[in-house]
C-alpha cells in the first residue's frame, strides 16, 4: 500500500472513531454542545483529519484568534500562538496539507495566509490589490487541494476569486453587480455555491467553477447566506434570516426540498457539515452566549 493510501486510511479510521464517539454522545434530535465558554465564535471548520474543529473566537476584547477543539478529549489550544493579529475564516485542504486563514495586517486589511504543513510550515500570503483596505474573507479549498476560493474585497468590489495554494495566479470568478460572498466549492469541484445581492438582498446562487452558468437557488425576502455543500454534494446548508433571526436551513443542491434545521429565538449560524455528512456543526447563541453545537440534518 502506498504511503498516500496509508495516510488516507488513517484519516478515515480516525474520522470514523471520532464520529462514532460523537454519535454515541448525541441524543437524537438534541443538539450536542461542544464548547462552554460562551465567547463569540465565528467560522468553524473541521480539520481534515476530522478529529478537531478550528474556529475564530473573540478571546480577548482586542483580539480574535483561531482555536482548535480536539474532539476526542475536548481539549483546546491556540492554532497560531505566534500570531498576535486578528485571525478569521480558517480553512483546511482536504488532504490536510494546507492550512489557511485571514490575518489582520494593519490599516484595516485582511490578507490570505496559507501554511504548507508538509514544507516546514512554510507560509505564503496573498495581499489583495485595491489599496490598503482591501480584504480577503470566507475561504474554501477546491477538492483537488490546488486552489483557494474566497471573497475578495478588491478593486472590482466584493467578488468571488481564487488563487493557487502558493497564493499566485489570481482568477476573478464573479464580476456582477451587488456583492458576492461566502463561496463553497462542490465536492466534485465543478460548481461553486455562494450568496449574492445582484438582485436585491442576499440570496443563494450556484455557478460553474469558472463563474459561468449562474443559477439562483433561493428567493427570500431577507438574507440567505453562508451556503455550504454537503460532503456528498447532494445538499446545501445555509443561514437564513427569513424567519426573523438567523436559523440553519438545508435544501437539495438544486434548490428544492427546503427544510429548517433549527428553531430558536436566538441565532444559529455558520453551518458546517460534519465530514460524514450526518450532522451539521453550528455556532449557536443560547442565553446570550455563543458556543459550538452539532445538530441533526433535517
Amino acid at each position, binding site marked *: 500500500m502506498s504511503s498516500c493510501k496509508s495516510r488516507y486510511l488513517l484519516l478515515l479510521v480516525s474520522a470514523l472513531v471520532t464520529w462514532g464517539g460523537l454519535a454515541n454522545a448525541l441524543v437524537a434530535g438534541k443538539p450536542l454542545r461542544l464548547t462552554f465558554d460562551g465567547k463569540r465564535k465565528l467560522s468553524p471548520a473541521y480539520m481534515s483529519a476530522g478529529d478537531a474543529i478550528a474556529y475564530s473566537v473573540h478571546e480577548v476584547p*482586542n483580539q480574535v484568534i483561531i482555536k482548535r477543539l480536539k474532539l476526542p478529549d475536548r481539549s483546546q489550544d491556540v492554532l497560531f500562538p505566534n500570531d498576535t493579529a486578528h485571525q478569521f475564516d480558517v480553512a483546511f485542504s482536504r488532504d490536510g496539507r494546507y492550512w489557511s486563514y485571514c490575518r489582520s495586517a494593519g490599516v484595516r486589511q485582511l490578507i490570505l495566509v496559507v501554511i504548507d504543513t508538509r514544507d516546514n510550515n512554510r507560509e505564503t500570503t496573498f495581499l489583495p490589490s*485595491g489599496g490598503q483596505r482591501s*480584504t480577503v474573507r470566507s475561504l474554501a479549498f477546491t477538492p483537488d487541494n490546488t486552489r483557494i476560493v474566497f471573497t475578495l474585497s478588491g478593486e472590482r468590489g466584493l467578488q468571488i476569486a481564487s488563487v493557487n495554494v502558493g497564493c499566485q495566479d489570481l482568477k476573478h470568478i464573479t464580476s456582477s*453587480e*451587488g456583492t458576492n460572498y461566502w463561496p463553497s466549492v462542490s465536492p466534485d469541484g465543478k460548481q461553486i455555491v455562494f450568496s449574492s445581492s445582484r438582485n436585491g438582498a442576499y440570496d443563494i446562487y450556484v455557478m460553474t467553477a469558472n463563474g459561468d452558468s449562474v443559477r439562483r437557488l433561493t428567493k427570500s425576502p431577507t438574507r440567505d447566506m453562508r451556503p455550504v455543500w454537503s460532503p456528498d454534494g447532494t445538499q446545501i446548508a445555509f443561514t437564513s434570516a427569513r424567519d426573523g*433571526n438567523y436559523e440553519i436551513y438545508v435544501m437539495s443542491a438544486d434548490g428544492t426540498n427546503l427544510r429548517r434545521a433549527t428553531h430558536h429565538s436566538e441565532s444559529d449560524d455558520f453551518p458546517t457539515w460534519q465530514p460524514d455528512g450526518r450532522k451539521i456543526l453550528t455556532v449557536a447563541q443560547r442565553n*446570550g452566549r455563543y458556543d459550538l453545537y452539532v445538530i441533526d440534518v433535517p
Partner: protein
Amino acid sequence: MIDIGSFPTRDCGGMTRRSFLKIGATLPVACGLPGGAEWLGAAEQSTAKSVLLVWLGGGPSHLDLFDPKPKAPSQFRGPFATLQTHVPGAHFSELLPRLAQRSKQFSLVRTNINHEGGHRPASSIALTGRQAPDGGEDRGGKPGQYPPNFGSILARHRPSSDLPGFISLARGPIGDGVGPVWGHGGGTWGKGYDSFMLDCSRTGQVSIPALKLLEGLSPLRLSDRRAMLRQMDRARRSLDRSEFQEWDEVYRRAYSLLTATGASQAFDLSRESEQTRNAYGHTSFGQSALLGRRLVEAGVPYVQVNWSQYVEVFFPFSDYGWDTHSDNFGLMADWHGPLLDRVFATLLDDLGDRGLLETTLVLLMGEFGRTPRINNIGSRDHWPHCFFTVWAGAGIQPGRVIGQSDPRGEHPLTDPVTPDMVGTTILELAGMHTARRAEMDVLQGSRVIHELL
C-alpha cells in the same frame, strides 16, 4: 500604571473573581466637583433625571441600519433587505428586526450632520456640539480647546452625591489608532471634568481602567483605614514625589467612590438576574449596557456606553468598532447588526419595564454615517453629510421619524440636525434651560430639536 488593589466580583455563574483596578494619568474625576452644589435641586425640575448615550464609535452605516434605500442603484443600496416598522413611512434594515418591532418606543432622526470627516474631530464635535477654535485633532490643534462634553456639563450642573456625574464605559479612552477623542472630557474646563471611566467585561467584571488599587484591598477592606494606610505607605515608598501627589489625589477620589455603598452596589452585575444578564447577551457591549442601566438607576446624571474603545475593526489592537472601511457588509451581517439590535432592544425593554424610560433620555449615535456610494472595494467610508440618531425616553415623543434624506441617503432633504442641536436637546431635557446654559456659557445660540418633543 500603579497597582493599588483589586476587588472581587462575581461572574454570571456565581464564581468569585478579582477585578483589578488601575491608576494612571487619565483619571476620571467628574465627581464631587465644585460649582454645582446650588443646582442640586435642578434634577427635580427636569424631565430627564439621567442621560444614557450609547456611542457607536467609528461611524455606523445609516443605509445599512436605520435609513435603507432599497430603490437606490446597486452601488448604493447594499445587500440587505428592509423591514417594515410600526411607524408609517419608516423602514429599517433587515439587520434590526427587534428594533423594527419596537419602533413605537423611540424616535429616529435621519438628517444629522457633522462638520468634520475624521473620527476624532467628528467625535469631539458630536460629543461637545462645537468645533475646536484651533482646528481640533486633525488640524494642528491641542487638547483642551474643545468646549466641555455634554456629560461634563450635566455633571457640573447636577453633581451627584456618591457616584460621579459623568461615567463612560470603555476599556480606556475612546479614540482611534492615532489617539483619544479630545472632546470626550472637560475640554476648556479642564481634566477635572473628564468622565469617570469604567470597564465592563463580557463576564460582567467591572474595573476602573485608570486605577489599579492596592493588591488585596477589597471594597470591604477599603473601609479598614489602617489597612489602606499600610498599603499606601508601601506604594508611597515606590513612587517619587510628583507621582505620589498625582496618585494620592486619584486615590482619594477612587477611595471615596469605591467605599460608597451605592457605588459598589451599582457596579455589581451579579445582583442582576441571570435572565436579565442573558437578555443583554454576554458580550462586553451587552453587559456594559446593563451596567449603564444600573448606573442610571443609581442616579448617575450622564452615562456613556461605548460600543468599543477604538473605532477600528481590523487593526491588531482594535476591538471591532464601527469603522467598516473594509468588509462592511460581512461585518454588519456577522456582528455589528445583530449585536446592536439585541442589546439596544433589550436596553429599551429593560428601562421600560423598570419605569426608568420616563426619567431617562436614551440616545444612540456615532460621529457620522458611512458613504452611501459603495467604495471600490465593496465597502463604505466616512460620511458626515447625513446620518442617524435614535432618541427615546424622557421628554421624547416616541414613534416619530424626523427628517428625510435624499433617495440615495447622501444629503438631508429637510433641515439638517447639527451636533449643537443634539447637545442643546440633551441639556434642555435634562433640565438645563436657556438661562442656565447661558450662565455656564455652553451651547448658546442653537436650538432644541423640537420635532422630537
